[in-house]
């Protein structure tokens, strides 16, 4: 009974996260400016990371942590580099 509750909770949570990714993806497509698109990409990154963590709970393996950590690092580096690009016009001066 509690396992079924956990299964339904995880399914609903994954549905929420998928809708969140779609919302952020629409913001990436719509814009209207470059900073909105960068913000949307950052949100897509974070929400995908959360989706991977819920997959880790569902499958009962800890292998998903490393993927989530790497995604967190790549997302931060991407946001920082794109902000630098928006401000200066180039990433490495």
């Amino acid at each position, binding site marked *: 009974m509690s396992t079924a509750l956990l299964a339904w909770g995880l399914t609903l949570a994954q549905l929420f996260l998928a809708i969140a990714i779609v919302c952020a993806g*629409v913001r990436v497509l719509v814009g209207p400016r470059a900073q909105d698109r960068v913000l949307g990409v950052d949100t897509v990154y*974070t929400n995908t990371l959360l989706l991977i963590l819920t997959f880790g709970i569902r499958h009962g393996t800890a292998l998903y942590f490393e993927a989530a950590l790497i995604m967190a690092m790549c997302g931060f580096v991407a*946001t920082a580099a794109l902000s630098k690009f928006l401000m200066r016009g180039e990433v490495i001066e």
Partner: protein
Amino acid sequence: MNSIPDLPPWAAITVAVLVLIGSGFTLIGAIGLLRLDSFYQRVHAPTIGSSFGVAFISLATVVCFSALRGTLALGAVLVFLFLTLTMPAGLVLLARAALFRDRAEGSQDVPPVDVTAGVELD
């Protein structure tokens, strides 16, 4: 569906509730990102929503694997710590870049550069 871990009831209910709260916060943040009007309003929504989402879902992961292994499994705390440190920093960088671009275009909606002109700062 049949690979759901076989948790004790208290752990299963706790994990389900925590995951639902975290994904709900994340969804609210993403809807805010979609619906709010200006960039400076939009930058708030996913920051707060995703931070709370990461906190609750990491906590759910810690509870799940601690109950599975019978010992404290703190692997997901790393994700929480790293994201809590980097997400505000990255979005502040992005907001500064957006402010710089708006000022460079001479937009009237953002405060001018010399807003503290004549103010004595200690």
